[in-house]
């Protein structure tokens, strides 16, 4: 049974594996800013958002990457932050 499950799991195509590995390695390649810089940005963002809502600091994820610009001008850098919200403070309104 376990063997079958393993087989099923391992059956993920090499194409998907390649794509996933590339995406991960490119996040590092593209972010030519120091981790300290990102930590500073992260700290400031938490400070501001905490005035308005309670967030899950542990799960906060922030990355510097690039994306296709909406004006079709090619690729532009983007700061992508994933901030899980625990609750919104009512006093912030």
């Amino acid at each position, binding site marked *: 049974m376990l063997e079958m499950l393993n087989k099923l799991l391992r059956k993920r195509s090499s*194409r998907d594996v*390649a*794509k996933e*590995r*590339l995406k991960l*390695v*490119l996040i590092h390649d*593209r972010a030519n800013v120091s981790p300290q810089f990102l930590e500073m940005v992260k700290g400031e963002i938490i400070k501001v958002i905490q005035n308005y809502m309670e967030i899950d600091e542990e799960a906060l994820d922030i990355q510097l990457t690039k994306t296709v610009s909406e004006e*079709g001008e*090619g690729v532009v850098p983007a700061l992508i932050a994933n901030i899980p919200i625990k609750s919104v403070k009512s006093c912030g309104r």
Partner: protein
Amino acid sequence: MGEVIVITSGKGGVGKTTTTANLGTGLSLNGKKVVLIDTDIGLRNLDVVMGLENRIVYDLVDLVEGVCRIKQALIKDKRFEGLYLLPAAQTRDKNAVTPEQMIKLCDELREEYDYILVDCPAGIEQGFKNAIAGTDRAIVVTTPEVSAVRDADRIIGLLEANELKNPKLIVNRVRPDMVKKGDMMSIEDIIDILAIDLIGVVPDDENIIISTNRGEPLVANGKSMAGKAYRNITRRIMGEEVPFADLTGQDGFLAKVKKMFGFRSA
């Protein structure tokens, strides 16, 4: 006023030189006046791929150093009207040419020729900087492998940092059968990762090896798949809208690419 286009990739061995030879030949077959410049000083190869290795007298370094005039350094390809090759020097190193000299050379060639295709060396050092210095547009060649796509991403970043906006992508050596089986990244996967416009897809084709053996660019020969792909890219370079052939055999590929292009050109 001609246009200078650099063919680059970052990684070696993905088909920059073959691409340069075929696109240049293709443009000349469309009645354009074309110069191919090999900037891979010390490791020149465009001459052998073009089958012009026995006709070299002067090279790129001789020309920028003023040893000879442009007309003396350009090798006229007798098989294709309007096609010329400027070979790299074989016994010098990459520092024998400066970006300023390349800009000056490209500006002079632009006066008289319709297209100047610059075959860029692999890597991101001086040779790359020289190759991109005088160019208007860039074409990035990659293959559906993680190493080539990763290096292409780096090159795209460097091109954009050097004000060469909107580089176009050629995906070379695609094996539709492997893509179908899930053993090769598809064109969509690669575009998704690199986020640049596609200008061509070249299938893996053994005729490329045969034509390189003979020193005859494949684009001139009617039936082969890769030759046809190069002819399509040639027309796209000249500004024609040529639909992408469905190489992957996947549903929706064509529709998605069309949609993407329609969306962007709007």
